[in-house]
């Protein structure tokens, strides 16, 4: 591991002033950054510890939404009564990730910016365009059982590992940030950049930006929502496929639906084609499957991950069926 300086910051202007150094990184819980530093994938010269910043609150907004500070831990997010009441799928998504220990350490800002778990990315001996631009992608012809079926290019087929961000994508969350020249905001669905031929450029955040929080707009439909994750063992593993869904059924027809998929792309995948296909359609298993097919028509499977297309289709039908039954109770 490269040697590094360490600074604790107590206010946002102090943080972004230090963050202007291109060799600096913000340190949240460290559960991803420290791991990657041990592997020499990340080699910062300075860590700016953000955990003492006054960004650890969850507050209702005037319009009835929620603002979640960037240093709120994953545990506190999932335990918060307003999150559980208004956006239950968000609490479920966070609880489905990592372990009790890691959720106590991990912060909201760090969770959004965690890097892919593609094994070649963390192995500096292998080619990887994301870690070392232009070196190639070892996964395309290698081990890619858990890689992308949507939005990937031959330059990178990695998936984003966050469960939390899948629920956030379904609920139209916005990421707020601060830079040395002022604040800014990005919709979560535009926060992660398309892969293109630049997989090393992952987000639309300006250089040195400090994430200050996430704003969730009011979404009555989110009160009937669910996150379901499939993994290779029952717990403490990353998703091989997941779905966040919210559903409003009136007289047997879909009035409003939100759908996002996890572990299928380099970013949480908001399934807008499926949402369009379902809105106004009867709330039946056939219609749910047809909507999933509408979204998955664009899927391009690799030799070893074709199962994900079926997996996501089945998950969509199962979760929407459960939500229809829940709404009828």
């Amino acid at each position, binding site marked *: 591991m490269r040697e590094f*300086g*360490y600074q604790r910051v107590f206010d946002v202007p102090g943080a972004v002033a230090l963050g202007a150094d291109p060799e600096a990184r913000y340190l949240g819980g*460290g559960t991803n950054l420290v791991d990657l530093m041990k592997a020499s994938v990340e080699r910062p010269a*300075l860590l700016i510890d953000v955990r003492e910043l006054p960004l650890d609150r969850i507050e209702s907004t005037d319009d009835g939404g929620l603002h979640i500070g960037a240093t709120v831990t994953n545990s506190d997010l999932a335990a918060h009564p307003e999150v559980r009441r208004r956006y239950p799928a968000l609490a479920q998504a966070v609880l489905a990730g990592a372990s*009790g220990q890691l959720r106590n350490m991990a912060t909201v800002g760090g969770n959004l910016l965690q890097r892919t778990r593609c094994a070649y990315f963390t192995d500096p001996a292998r080619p990887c365009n994301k870690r070392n631009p232009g070196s190639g992608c070892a996964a395309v012809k290698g081990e890619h059982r858990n890689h992308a079926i949507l939005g990937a290019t031959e330059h990178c087929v990695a998936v984003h590992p966050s469960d939390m961000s899948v629920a956030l994508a379904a609920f139209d969350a916005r990421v707020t940030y601060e830079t040395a020249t002022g604040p800014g905001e990005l919709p979560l669905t535009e926060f992660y950049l398309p892969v293109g031929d630049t997989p090393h450029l992952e987000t639309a955040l300006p250089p040195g930006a400090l994430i200050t929080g996430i704003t969730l707009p009011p979404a009555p439909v989110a009160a009937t929502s669910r996150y379901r994750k499939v993994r290779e063992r029952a717990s403490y593993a990353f998703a091989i496929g997941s779905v966040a869904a919210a559903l409003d059924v009136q007289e047997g027809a879909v009035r409003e639906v939100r759908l996002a998929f996890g572990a299928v792309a380099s970013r949480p995948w908001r399934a807008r084609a499926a949402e369009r296909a379902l809105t106004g359609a009867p709330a039946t298993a056939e219609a749910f499957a047809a909507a999933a097919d509408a979204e998955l028509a664009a899927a391009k499977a690799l030799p070893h991950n074709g199962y994900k297309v079926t997996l996501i289709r089945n998950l969509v039908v199962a979760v929407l069926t459960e939500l229809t039954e829940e709404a009828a109770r």
Partner: protein
Amino acid sequence: MSQSTASVITLNINGEKHTLPVDHRTTLLDALRERLDLTGTKKGCDQGQCGACTVLLDGRRAVSCLQLAVAAEGREITTIEGVADGEQLHPVQQAFLDLDGYQCGFCTPGQICSAIAMIEEHAAGWPSAVTADVRPEAEAAPLTAEEIRERMSGNLCRCGAYVSIVRAVARAAQADDAQQPPVSDELARLAGSEQKEGVA
């Protein structure tokens, strides 16, 4: 801008202050084991994947292998060496002893620290990934074997002592008056010593 890559820090461990110089690269786990001779905390994977290095930070469980020592300054650190009350074992330690919640014992300090905090998380009403309804209006989930397995899933045991670990955690949770809601009937049975069937 040149930054110092080492600092003299003071760590508050089990109620005692320890002042030591550290290279910033030092994890809390390595500081405990290699510098302070607190070797109860174990190193399994060193990557956050096994839970053997679990300690309590300000009362909450955390993996010390991904926690930088310098970033732990100012926090209250409790290791397995600090959970007992003098000669009186912590109820979770006693339950692991009574119900054989281990085989080789390597994962045990992490399991015990994790279970101590897990029982408090449940008492505070935190839901888990297997809680059927996470909404605050729903009845708080009673502690079942399924809930214990999910909540303890961040602690792996290479010996596979999980069956008795779940029973030991159940026994300790049952003994804890703060458990609201109380443990499930299934769990009370699991925690009871009559469960030692088959043993002559």
